[in-house]
């Protein structure tokens, strides 16, 4: 019996004790987080619902900068082996011309963080889920790669990783055989920062708490008429647009 193994045993007992003690202390301590200032160590709460409001009139480039910022932040879209339609695509620029007005509008489209996300309903394992603060995510640990969520998404917002990846960003794990999509830069939000795309188009996009009536985003939503894409589906999206 080596020395290490002895320590092992002692350690295990010791740890068990600690775990029990801290567990008891932590349970009632589910603190509510102030929107904006988020210490890393508190669980997210459903008092908050994160959302984003994009003013397409103010977007000079139709969202190119936002898409580029997302790409840089998460490192998707340059998979060497995948064909173009197999590449990761968390956000894309969509341009459309209205029938009545002939008006051309470009806007970035990504996961709309629905309140009633169809992807979450259909996922067999529960890997697609909505966090308490409204962010729709894939738990890639339990995603089996069935792609059901991709067919269910009305926005084409999801992509499947079609090959082995290397050198991912430490803050944005993504890998073969799992489905991915915009996660509202959850790692930044948890650190109290704004998503990368919002920073890239600061004067055209407002990010904030939809549940808080006094937040800038809520006030702006009320003041102007902001739209959802495919509002007819009744999904109550967290990403809203002006001027579409």
């Amino acid at each position, binding site marked *: 019996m080596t020395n290490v193994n002895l320590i*092992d045993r002692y350690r295990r007992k010791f740890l068990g004790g600690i775990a029990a003690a801290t567990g008891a202390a932590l349970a009632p301590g589910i603190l509510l987080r102030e929107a904006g200032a988020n210490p890393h*160590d508190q669980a997210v709460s459903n008092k908050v619902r994160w959302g984003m409001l994009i003013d397409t009139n103010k977007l000079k480039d139709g969202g190119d900068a936002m898409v580029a910022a997302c790409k840089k932040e998460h490192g998707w879209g340059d998979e060497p082996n995948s064909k173009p339609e197999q590449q990761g695509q968390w956000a894309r620029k969509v341009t459309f011309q209205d029938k009545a007005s002939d008006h051309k509008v470009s806007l970035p489209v990504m996961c709309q963080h629905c309140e009633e996300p169809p992807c979450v309903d259909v996922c067999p394992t529960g890997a697609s889920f909505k966090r308490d603060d409204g962010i729709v995510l894939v738990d890639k640990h339990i995603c089996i790669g069935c792609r059901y969520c991709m067919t269910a998404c009305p926005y084409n917002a999801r992509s499947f990783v079609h090959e082995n990846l290397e050198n991912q960003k430490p803050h944005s794990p993504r*890998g073969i055989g799992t489905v991915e999509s915009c996660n509202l830069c959850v790692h930044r939000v948890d650190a109290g920062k704004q998503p990368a795309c919002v920073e890239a188009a600061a004067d055209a996009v407002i990010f904030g708490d939809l549940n808080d009536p006094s937040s800038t985003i809520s006030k702006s939503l009320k003041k102007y008429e902001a739209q959802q894409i495919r509002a007819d589906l009744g999904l109550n999206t967290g990403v809203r647009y002006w001027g579409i």
Partner: protein
Amino acid sequence: MTKWRYLLALMLSLLLLACSHEQESTLTPTLMAAQKQFETVEQRDLHIAEMRTNHMNLLKHKRDRTVYQGIRTPKHSLNGCIDCHVPVPTVNKTVKHTDSEHFCMTCHVELAVKIDCFQCHADRPPVSEKAVKP
């Protein structure tokens, strides 16, 4: 009857073989040194002992807290392990999880336990913005 005796003997010897291998494996392979070192030997040994038996549970527990609750403290964070146990890539050398000298792989190859952490997670510390330009 003899047939069974042979079979029994075979199984026994296989069992012995398996046990003898078990004994061998208490000799751990040499691991890559961590970037940061503990102040005392006791601290280090405790860390080794805890991690050797429990790292998978700690990581898994933390993983769920991070994914579902957004708790991203440094304690038991996989990125934290990697930052300390895998060297920062340099122009000349990058240690990847496909190399057997990679901290995690050294044991996992030895014990033939496959992990899929690095299909998604970064297997090396990030290169700082400045250092990336040659």
